[in-house]
């Protein structure tokens, strides 16, 4: 197992996990564009992830695509590979690698909260745990997600004449926010920016009910008054949002926990809803997988390395460049 310019390389199997450049053989944890890059010759992933890659990358989704269901094992070279649910987005997986009697788990991006749109994270005890650390600082504690959706519904009750536009990631966050709203009893149509529609349709194809969705792009201005609109983070404060009259700008992201960050983005209503584990969940997961060695990647590695070292775990930061911050 080693870190190359292409990404994380599993030598005895001759494949990469979430490589940053096009390679011969890749195992992909989930469909976000910083993990699922185009042009690999051979791709192994869950059926959900492969469907997302085909929709987003078309021809670039990979020369040959091999689906692997959660829990099924396959042998590549001298390595046994299994995918375990990561709870991040639809199809997201941890990669469980077994070789010469020891087990390495690559977490990919993950969260521990209940999410109707994907299978829940499964902790897999292992010898080396390679964990993400997007929210790897103890200031990040995500509040209960239904409380955050409650904030949104409350604001809609106070300002019924204003439309509420929520910045969401197209893959995962969008569908999660919709299912949270539905769970909170919001049954009016939800309006979508054009960029969000294809993934929502794909999720529905996987049996995830999203209720009535309408395109915000063709909706008349009058209809959007007081409506709930979802759009990619970049669109909420740009030209696209001009079709909305005096909108309340909201953003659903773990970063919204830090006030200054929300302010910088001109967010009036920050919603702390994240598809990543918060600090407590990161440390809880380290306890559960009980790995004597931890590698920390993309995020604020330092704090998690420090925390692990304090607890007698051998820890190091993997310098993997090229991964983006959520919502960036």
């Amino acid at each position, binding site marked *: 197992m080693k870190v190359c310019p292409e990404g994380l390389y599993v030598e005895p199997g001759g494949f990469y996990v979430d490589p940053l450049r096009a390679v011969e053989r890749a195992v992909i944890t989930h469909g976000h564009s910083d993990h699922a890059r185009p042009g690999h010759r051979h791709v192994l992933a869950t059926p959900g992830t492969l469907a997302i890659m085909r929709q987003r990358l078309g021809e670039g989704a990979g020369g040959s695509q091999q689906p692997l269901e959660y829990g099924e094992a396959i042998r590549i070279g001298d390595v046994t590979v299994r995918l375990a649910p990561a709870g991040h987005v639809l199809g997201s997986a941890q990669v469980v690698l077994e070789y010469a009697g020891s087990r390495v788990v690559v977490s990919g991006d993950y969260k521990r909260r209940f999410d109707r749109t994907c299978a829940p994270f499964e902790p897999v005890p292992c010898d080396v745990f390679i964990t993400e650390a997007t929210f790897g600082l*103890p200031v*990040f504690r995500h509040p209960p997600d239904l409380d955050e959706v409650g904030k949104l519904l409350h604001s809609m009750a106070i300002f019924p004449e204003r439309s509420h536009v929520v910045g969401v990631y197209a893959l995962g966050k969008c569908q999660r926010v919709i299912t949270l709203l539905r769970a909170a009893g919001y049954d009016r149509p939800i309006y979508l920016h054009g960029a969000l529609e294809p993934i929502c349709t794909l999720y529905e194809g996987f049996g995830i009910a999203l209720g009535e969705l309408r395109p915000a792009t063709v909706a008349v201005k009058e209809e959007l008054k007081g409506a709930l609109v979802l759009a990619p983070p970049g669109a909420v404060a740009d030209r696209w949002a001009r079709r909305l009259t005096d909108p309340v700008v909201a953003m659903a992201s773990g970063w919204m926990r*830090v006030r200054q960050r929300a302010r910088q983005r001109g967010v009036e209503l920050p919603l702390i809803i994240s598809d990543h584990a918060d600090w407590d969940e990161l440390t809880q997961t380290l306890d559960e997988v009980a790995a004597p060695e931890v590698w920390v990647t993309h995020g604020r590695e330092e704090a998690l390395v420090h*925390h692990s070292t304090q607890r007698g775990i051998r820890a190091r930061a993997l310098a993997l460049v090229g991964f983006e911050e959520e919502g960036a």
Partner: protein
Amino acid sequence: MNRFATLIDALVFMPSRNGKIRLLADFFATTPDPDRGWALAALTETLVFHEAKPAAIRQLAAARVDPELFALSYDYVGDLAETVALIWPERPDRANSLPPTLPEVVDTLRAAKRSQVMELVEGWLDTLDSSGRFALLKLITGSLRVGVSARLAKTALAEWGKVDVGDLEECWHGLTPPYVDLFAWLEGRAERPAAGHGAGFRPLMLSHPLEEEDMAALDPAAYSAEWKWDGIRVQLAARGAERRIYSRTGDDVSGAFPDIVDHMSFDAVLDGELLVARGEGEVAPFNDLQQRLNRKAVTAKTLQEFPAWVRLYDILFDGEEDLRGLPFLERRARLERWYEAVRPRRMDLSPLVPFDGWDALKALREGARENSIEGLMLKRSDSNYVAGRPKGPWFKWKRGALTLDTVLMYAQRGHGKRSSYYSDFTFGVWRGEELVPVGKAYFGFTDAELLELDRWVRNHTVRKYGPVREVKAGLVLEVAFDSVHPSNRHKSGLAMRFPRVHRIRWDKPGAEADRLETLQKMVVG
């Protein structure tokens, strides 16, 4: 504490002034006494606790959290109160205890000995949620920084209570937190509280711009004229031991001008222009004054380099005597008499400008080339000093603006309503073959023109730096400005005063815009 915390959070994120007023009004309407009064005191910085220093708060957190993790977090968040509020480990055993109310916090802290304060704070942090912790820490360290000035809070109170904000200012200085009698008045349950005799702010009298066509209807004999100086309008209020300097909007700026406050050993309320001196009684460019603005404290070096003084226009109170009901010329005589008797240092009188008919005055206005003169003020000789901006008694007659053809260089997205538009423009002029920036403007155009400018910027972007776009040197903006001064803050060595977009010259090629030498020649004094 929860309602207050929710208000603080909402204010932090609300970008618009009107939105803030709405949030405040809603809070005052739905929060009982004395909670709302203590919140008002905190917002207007009337309520200050000195016992809780940042170092002590840091220590509290260090006892609960790994110091290395705290340091990394503080480094990331950048604000101590917020870091502690977010990182504070919640104790499940305290989850069901009731968080303190705002009056409970205030009363307890006021009664507490200094040595008990941090222990109390620690107990409260354990029962509050993260918003509550943030509000508590901001409250006890004394700076809320939620973008609400005392004046804005009063404006919100006045709008909610449907009273004139001037009326509210009149009685404000006689009030003490938690302002129960004030709220009783605003809710129509009692008379307005009596005006006190403290050094409170009295609303200023403001003027309207003079339109040339107005002049025909005005009788020159009924008006007095004086120069309009290019500084900032202030009110000096000295009553007993209390000495205050207020800005035009009633914000207390005394802290930035100790060199004036030192010499306010009198009992009066005065109206004047705050200026910076250069040499013997000469007014320094506005740029120098800017070095003294928006500062909570000043260094000895700044005080020496940019000494402040006040040019007096009017007198509102002489001792206990309210002069505002007197006609302008009688007040003027009282001001001169008062000045002769008191002779305050760092102050002089703004002279009246005698004139014979409008044409003569016009000639005087055009002849005045000093940068320190913004134009003329016309005041009806019989006008009382009334709050606000009544139409008729006072006019400002600004000097004609200077203009320059500049090239648009950079555009930045605006805020609030304009957040999707490139609406802040940096423009430059030619120095040899290169463009050098000379100023920035964000108004002077119509909404329709803004749409066109935004489109032009997007279609001619050369480079992007975050929210800023560099554009092709192709659009000429005719910029109007009041004056231009040497400045070492800009690459061009010059700074414009009050620049605005005068006309968009869609027709003019960028190469034909003005050169830096042209602007340099416009520097006077």
